[in-house]
């Protein structure tokens, strides 16, 4: 295919390589016939016959630069639009918007705090549940899994990632909510009730149920990425640690996990990103009540859910503007959480010597 495309260029550039065999400089005298005598590889043939690539190189670099800059442009554009459309609410509430609990469309009093709390609480809880499980799946798949089982398990984890979130939501409503109400909830309040996190009536919907469905949704992302990262650790590392007398678990800990920790954090951050922005499944099971409550059984509300719920029927400019400012809050929360995660990675990995722990 490439040869047909290159035909015109080959003709125009043909004079260039011609002189080389005719008057070879002394140093190349031996080489030139040797090259000519071997059958030319297609790549070499192509590279020697095409002309100077400067124009192509420069324009390629320019196009790639535009692609890279477009990311900045898109982010700035979104940010600008959010600010522009929320200016009414920004002017009315100022910074107080992010620290007050009111959400009253009737009297026009808006604050984002319960939604920010709901978003962060569900996402972090989901990470606490999903990360150990995902690491377990990845370690099993890369280090311990019998070969015939590997493909089916990998396939299933990736299949989980392809399920639309509304399907997760439906499953949560019909399976997870009753399970939470009748089995998990009573068990938690009996065993861990003293912590105060499992107080109050348990209706099956609430922060904990939302966190659980989020955990299931981000599990395949984290585990499949982590598996790929662990597979990329060279076998020589494993062999070296084993040769020093390590057990299999020590080999996994020292040879694999430590080497892939940056990648794992990256995978976790991708999962967190999905958890922060997930809308549909969370809306279906979180209870949609803007309250900040210590109990995980209590209903909550997330930033993404309130936008999805109220945007289409938002009458009144201030109401609409407040909803768009909720979008701005979600945007900022995502940026801040990602920045903190990056700082943590940097702090941990900077000058990190090889340690056993």
């Amino acid at each position, binding site marked *: 295919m490439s040869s047909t495309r290159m035909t015109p260029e080959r003709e125009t550039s043909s004079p260039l390589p011609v002189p080389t065999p005719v008057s070879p400089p002394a140093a190349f005298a031996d080489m030139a016939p040797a090259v000519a005598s071997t059958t030319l590889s297609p790549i070499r043939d192509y590279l020697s016959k095409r002309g100077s690539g400067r124009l192509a190189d420069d324009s390629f670099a320019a196009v790639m630069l535009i692609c890279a800059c477009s990311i900045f442009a898109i982010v700035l554009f979104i940010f600008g639009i959010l600010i522009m459309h929320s200016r009414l609410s920004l002017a009315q509430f100022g910074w107080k918007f992010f620290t007050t609990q009111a959400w*009253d*469309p*009737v009297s026009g009093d808006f604050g984002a705090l319960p939604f920010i709390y709901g978003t962060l609480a569900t996402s972090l809880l989901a990470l606490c549940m999903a990360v150990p499980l995902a690491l377990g799946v990845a370690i099993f798949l890369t280090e311990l899994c019998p070969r015939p089982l590997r493909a089916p398990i990998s396939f299933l984890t990736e299949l989980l990632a392809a399920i639309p979130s509304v399907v997760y939501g439906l499953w949560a*409503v019909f399976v997870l909510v*009753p399970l939470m109400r009748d089995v998990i909830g009573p068990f938690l309040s009996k065993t861990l009730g003293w912590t105060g996190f499992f107080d109050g009536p348990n209706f099956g*919907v609430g922060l904990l149920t939302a966190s659980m469905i989020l955990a299931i949704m981000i599990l395949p992302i984290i585990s499949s990425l982590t598996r790929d990262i662990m597979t990329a650790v060279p076998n020589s590392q494993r062999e070296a640690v084993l040769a020093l007398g390590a057990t299999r678990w020590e080999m996994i800990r020292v040879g694999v996990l430590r080497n892939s920790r940056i990648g794992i954090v990256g995978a976790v951050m991708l999962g967190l990103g999905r958890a922060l922005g997930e809308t549909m499944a969370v809306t279906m099971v979180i209870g949609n*009540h*803007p309250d900040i409550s210590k109990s995980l059984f209590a209903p909550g509300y997330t930033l993404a859910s309130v936008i999805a719920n109220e945007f289409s*029927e938002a*009458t009144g400019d201030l109401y609409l503007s407040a909803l768009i400012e909720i979008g701005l809050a979600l945007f900022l929360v995502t940026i801040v959480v990602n920045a903190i995660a990056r700082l943590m990675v940097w702090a941990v990995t900077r000058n990190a010597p090889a340690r056993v722990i």
Partner: protein
Amino acid sequence: MNLKVIAAGVLTLVAVGANAQNINGAGATFPYPIYSKWFSEYSQTNPSVKINYQSIGSGGGIRQVSEGTVDFGATDGPMTDQQLKDAKVKVMHIPTVLGAVVPVYNLPGVNKDLNFSSDVIADIYLGKITKWSDPRITKDNPGVNLPDKSILPVYRSDGSGTTFIFTDFLSKVSPDWATKVGHSTSVKWPTGIGQKGNEGVAGMVRQSPYSFGYVELIYAETNKMSFGAVRNASGKFLKASTAGVTAAASAAAKTMPADYRVSITNAPGADSYPISSFTWLLIPTHSTDPAKAKALADFLGWMLDHGENEAAALTYAPLPKQVQDMVRKSIATVK
């Protein structure tokens, strides 16, 4: 602003490419089933007119018709005076059909339909009545053994005309509700959990024992859900029906204002179901395109002559005779 420009662009694209007169509308989701039936039937009898309707919600309908983005809007709650004043395009309300909201509940072991006083419903959502065995509930339901269990109130989390009608009713029957919460397409609920859509509320109520919720009559009927009777303004407990809704509208017709912006919740009359409401089309009073205005007026005439007869089949209540006559006069003023 940009959203509106984009929406306008999309609608213009839809409009281009056909010789027929294209009329574009957007708004309420509640009357969408009957509107889409009307519009498709009308296009069959009048091939030169094609009416496109997008059910984007009442709020969107009001915004788009006020900006002149669409040729007509639709809403479940009437526009406020402020909204009418701010609108770039002057519009009038034309009532089309009526709907009702019914209380649904899940009480294992109770097979009888329950009665609810209107103030009891308000106090359940205010968090003042928390147990099914509360004396105020048992008083209305003699002979029913109500369990000593906590009530789980379920409400619509998405902004909706259903919530507007329901909270409008609660504001009228409970002074406490009117001052603490008020009425709107979405409100600050004092207690309970929110679920998205009629199906969300119904699904939650169906699977949560001891829960209480509200859904549209059409939804409860098509899904064969049992629902409670509500005490109306004359003190009679009434289960919702299209007849009861039309009765409420007839009762209100006598005092119907010229712009039709009237709430008929808690309407007088022994047969009036108290949680009923009109749904409206928003028609520009002075269109820039006379041909379009004429086509729209023709459709509205057709709606009164033929469309209203089909309402009951889809469990909407048709307009009462007096209101139909009023609407016929209003249509004549569309220019």
